[in-house]
C-alpha cells in the first residue's frame, strides 16, 4: 500500500453565516398553544432582548444541519484521539434514555414514584463495582474531573478523621492536567513524580517522595503512555505503608474491563469516565459522567444521597453523618447512567472482555505497522493506546501538530497532539475497539505517506490542511485580541 486513496473527497460544503446574520425581524420558528388562563402583566419587565435571533423553523434546521457538516465524529470514521476513547455510540442508548418516565422524570418527584430510575442506578452501580472490584460507589460526579475532586475530598475526609489531612498529593508527570488542578481545589499542594525510562513510576523516587506529608498518589493505570504500571502492587504497598491512599484515574479503563480490576491491585478510590469506557456520547465536549468507586474504608464519606437497597427496594439514604456532602445538585448525569447501562447490557461479560481485547489488539497493530517510520520513545508494551514522538520528522521541521493537520487531508481525525507532556512532540493514538482493520490500514497508510512527505515535501505537511473549509487559524491573534461574541455593525465599529 504505497499511495492510499484519501478518505476525504469534495462534496457540497455550504457556507453559513452566524445565526444573527441569518436573522430577520418578524420571523418566528415557534407557536405556543393558546393561553387558557388570563394574561398577566409584570411591572418592570425587561425591554426586548437586543439583537436576539429571529428565524423560521426551517432556517433553524438548515443552520444547525449545515454547521454539523463541518464537524467530524465517530460516525464519520476512525477518531483516534488518544486518552479520549472515541468509541461507537449505539442508538438504542439514546432511545431508552428518552423513554417517557425517564427522559421527563423529575429528580425531586416522590421516591416511590421513582423506583424505575433508582433501579437503573442500582443495577449500573452493581455492574460498575463488579467491573472495578471496588466496594461502594457514587454516580453523582458530573464528569471525570469532578470524579477526581470527589475522590480526593473523600481521601481528605478520611485522613482528617484519622487526625491528619496531610499536605500533598503526588502526581506523575505523565498525568492529565485535571489531576493537579483537582488536588489544588481540594486544598493540597501538588508534587510532581518523575517517570523512569520505561515510562512508569520510578520506585526510587516514589520511595523518596512518599513521605508522611503525602495524602495520596494519583495514578492513571494504564498510564497516559498506554503502559500498565507493572509495579502496581509495590506502589500500592508503599503508599499504604506510609499512611497514604492510592487514587486511580480510570480514564484508561477501556484497556482493563474484564481483564483486570483496580480493586484487586490495591486501589483505594478511583473514578470512571462513562463517556470513555462506557460509550456515552462525547457530544462535542460533554456531557460526561464520572462515578467514583471506593474501598470500604472510604464508604462512610461518600456524597449524599447514597443509594441502598432496603427490603428489596432501592432507597436514597440521606442520613450519612460522615458524608462530604453533595458535589452536584440531584443525582448526577442520570441520562448517562441509562446509556452506560444499556452499553453494558448489550455487551455483557463476554462482549466487554472482547471489547477490551480488540481495543488493545488495535493499538498494538497500529504500533507494529508504524514503528519503523515514527519514533517510539518507550518500547514498553502498549495497551489500548500507543504514543509515538515526532523526533524523526522534527529533523525536517515537521512537528506532531503538522502531521495531525495533514491527516485531516487524508480524511481522518487526528490523534492527540503533544500529550502526554513527558514525550516531546507526542502523537498519542487510541484506535479503540471501534476501528476496523480496513480503516486502520488506510490510517496507517496515510501516516506512512505523511512520513514520506515530511522528507520530500515538508511544506506540504507544515501548510496542512489544504482541503478543509478553512485553513489554519491564527490562534495567537485570536488570544491577543479576543472576540468572544458577535456584535452588530462590527465592520462599522472597526472602521471608526
Amino acid at each position, binding site marked *: 500500500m504505497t499511495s492510499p486513496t484519501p478518505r476525504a473527497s469534495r462534496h457540497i460544503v455550504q457556507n453559513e453565516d452566524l445565526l444573527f446574520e441569518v436573522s430577520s425581524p418578524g420571523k418566528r420558528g415557534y407557536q405556543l398553544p393558546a393561553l387558557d388562563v388570563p394574561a398577566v402583566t409584570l411591572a418592570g419587565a425587561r425591554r426586548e432582548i437586543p439583537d436576539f435571533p*429571529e428565524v423560521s423553523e426551517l432556517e433553524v434546521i438548515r443552520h444547525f444541519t449545515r454547521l*454539523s457538516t463541518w464537524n467530524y465524529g465517530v460516525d464519520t470514521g476512525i477518531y483516534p484521539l488518544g486518552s479520549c476513547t472515541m468509541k461507537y455510540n449505539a442508538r438504542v442508548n439514546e432511545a431508552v434514555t428518552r423513554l417517557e418516565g425517564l427522559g*421527563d422524570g423529575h429528580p425531586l418527584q416522590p421516591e416511590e414514584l421513582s423506583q424505575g430510575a433508582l433501579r437503573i442506578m442500582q443495577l449500573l452501580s452493581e455492574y460498575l463495582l463488579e467491573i472495578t472490584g471496588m466496594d461502594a460507589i457514587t454516580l453523582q460526579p458530573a*464528569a471525570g474531573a469532578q470524579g477526581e475532586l470527589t475522590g480526593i475530598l473523600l481521601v481528605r475526609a478520611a485522613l482528617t478523621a484519622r487526625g491528619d489531612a496531610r499536605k500533598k498529593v503526588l502526581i506523575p508527570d505523565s498525568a492529565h492536567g485535571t489531576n493537579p488542578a483537582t488536588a489544588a481545589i481540594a486544598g493540597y499542594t501538588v508534587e510532581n513524580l518523575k517517570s523512569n525510562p520505561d515510562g512508569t513510576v520510578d520506585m526510587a523516587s516514589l520511595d523518596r517522595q512518599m513521605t508522611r506529608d503525602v495524602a495520596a498518589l494519583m495514578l492513571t493505570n494504564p498510564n497516559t503512555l498506554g503502559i500498565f504500571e507493572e509495579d502496581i*502492587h509495590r506502589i500500592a504497598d508503599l503508599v499504604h505503608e506510609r499512611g497514604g491512599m492510592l487514587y486511580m484515574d480510570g480514564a484508561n479503563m477501556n484497556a482493563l474491563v474484564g481483564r*483486570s480490576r483496580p480493586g484487586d491491585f490495591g486501589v483505594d478510590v478511583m473514578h470512571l469516565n462513562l463517556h470513555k469506557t462506557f460509550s456515552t456520547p*462525547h457530544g462535542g465536549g460533554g456531557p460526561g459522567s464520572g462515578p467514583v468507586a471506593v474501598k470500604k474504608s472510604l464508604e462512610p464519606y461518600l456524597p449524599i444521597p447514597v443509594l441502598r437497597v432496603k427490603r428489596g427496594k432501592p432507597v436514597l439514604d440521606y442520613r450519612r453523618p460522615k458524608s462530604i*456532602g453533595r458535589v452536584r445538585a440531584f443525582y448526577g448525569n442520570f441520562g448517562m447512567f441509562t446509556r452506560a447501562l444499556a452499553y453494558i447490557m448489550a455487551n455483557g461479560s463476554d462482549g466487554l472482555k472482547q471489547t477490551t481485547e480488540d481495543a488493545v489488539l488495535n493499538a498494538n497493530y497500529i504500533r507494529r505497522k508504524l514503528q519503523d517510520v515514527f519514533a517510539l520513545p518507550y518500547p514498553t508494551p502498549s495497551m489500548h493506546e500507543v504514543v509515538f514522538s515526532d523526533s524523526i520528522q522534527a529533523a525536517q521541521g515537521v512537528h506532531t501538530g503538522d502531521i495531525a*493537520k495533514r491527516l485531516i487531508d487524508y480524511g481522518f481525525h487526528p490523534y492527540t497532539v503533544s500529550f502526554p507532556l513527558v514525550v516531546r512532540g507526542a502523537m498519542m493514538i487510541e484506535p479503540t475497539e471501534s476501528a476496523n482493520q480496513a480503516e486502520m490500514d488506510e490510517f496507517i497508510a496515510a501516516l506512512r505517506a505523511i512520513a514520506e512527505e515530511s522528507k520530500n515535501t515538508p511544506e506540504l505537511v507544515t501548510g496542512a490542511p489544504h482541503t478543509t473549509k478553512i485553513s489554519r487559524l491564527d490562534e495567537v491573534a485570536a488570544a491577543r485580541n479576543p472576540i468572544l461574541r458577535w456584535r452588530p455593525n462590527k465592520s462599522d465599529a472597526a472602521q471608526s
Partner: protein
Amino acid sequence: MRYLPTSDPIRQRMLADVGLTSIDELFSHIPEYCRLQRPLNIPKGQAEADIIRFFRAAAAENAPGFTSFVGAGAYHHFRPTHLDTLISRGEWFTAYTPYQPEISQGTLQSIFEFQTMICQLTGQEVANAGMYDGSTALHEACMMAARVTGRSGMVVARSIHPQYREVLRTLTRYRDFPTAEIGFGADGRIDVDALRAAVNASTAAVAVQSPNFFGNLEDWEQAAEIAHSAGALLIAVITDPVSLGLLPPPEAADIVAMELQGFGIPVGFGGPYAGIIASREKFVRSLPGRLVGEARDSQGRRGFVLTLSTREQHIRREKATSNICTNQALCALMASIFMATYGKQGLRELAEHNLAKAAYAASAFAASGAEVLFPSPRFHEFVVRPKRPLAASKSALRKAKLIAGLPLQGYYPELGESVLVCVTETISREDIDRLVAAL
C-alpha cells in the same frame, strides 16, 4: 458483540501481523495477581429488543403520564421536536472537544453563537461555553470572585436553591472561604438589612438568586449596590433561563451563574444539564471554563477557535482557574437551538405564559382557602400551605396522576407543611384546577 466491527478470522490475521499467537500474550506483561481469572459476573450480551424491554419496564415504574408541579431547579418546558432531530446527527453527538478547529467549525461556531446569546440574554459582556450545571456554576462563580477580589468571604442568600448551597459547602469544605447565609423576610425576599450588615471588607461575593427558590423576584440593583459598597462582587444565580424572556437581566451583577436546563434540555431525572458563567469583559482572564473566539485563517476567512486556554487545567495544571474539562457541549447546543427557535418574540411570549399560569394557580389556591405564602412578585413558582397536610392528599393525588410540588419541610423546617409549586406553560388550566381540588 454487534458493536465490534471485526471477526475472529480478522483478529487472527492481525495477531499474526503483530507477531503473536494468542490474545493473552497482549496482556502477559500484566502481573498475574492483577489479572482477572474468571468472567465478570454480568449477564452475557443481550439483544436490542431485550434492552428496550428492560428500560420500558423501568420507565413504567417512574411516574409516566403524571402531571408534575415540581420545579425547584428542574423545569418542564416544551421541547420542540426538531431539537432532538438536530442533536441526534452523528456530527454533533459523536464528535469531541474541538481541539482541531479545521474539522470542528460546526461545534465552534455554535458555541460562539451560544456565548453571544447568553450575553444578550443576561446583559453581560462575556460568557463561557458551559459548565456542569447551575449548582457547580455557583461554586465556580464564588472561586472566580475570590480570584478577582483577593478576598475570601462569601455572603449567600438562604433563598438560593438548597442543593446549590450544599454543593458550595462540599466543594469549599477544605479551603478557607467563610460563608454567611442571609435569611428571607415575610415577602420571601432576601433580608436586606441582614445582607447589609453581613457584607464587609473581607467579602468577595454576595450571591443572590432571582427568581429565588420560592419563585419570588429579587432586586438586582439593590443587591449590587450593597455588594459594591463594600468592594465585593454580586453573583446572580438563575435556575430557569426562561425567566429572562421577561425579567430584567442581571446587568448590575458582576458574575452570572445560571442553569440552562429550561432551554430544551430534558428534565431527565436530574441531568445532564448545563450551567454557564457570564461576566464582565475586564474579568475574562479569571473566567473558568472553555471560551471560543473568532479568528482568521491565512486567507482572511472567518473561523472560530478555543481561546485564552492558558487559564485552563491542561496548560496551567494546578494553577488553573478550574479543574473542569468539559463544557456540556451537547446540552449547550440544545439550549442554542431552543433559543434560536423561540427567538426574540418567542422567549418573551413563553415567559409570559409561565407567568400567567402560575398567577392563575396561585389565585386558585388562595380562593380555595389554602395559604399562599410570600406575597411579592414572582415568576412561575410559589409556596403554598395546603388546607391539610400533603400526606392526607396522597391517594387522591396518585389517583389523579398528579405530583403536587416539592414539600419544603426538609429544606426549610420553619415553613412547615408547605409546598413549592411550579406551573410552566406545559400545564393546562384544567390540570391546575384538578390540583387545587385534590389538595
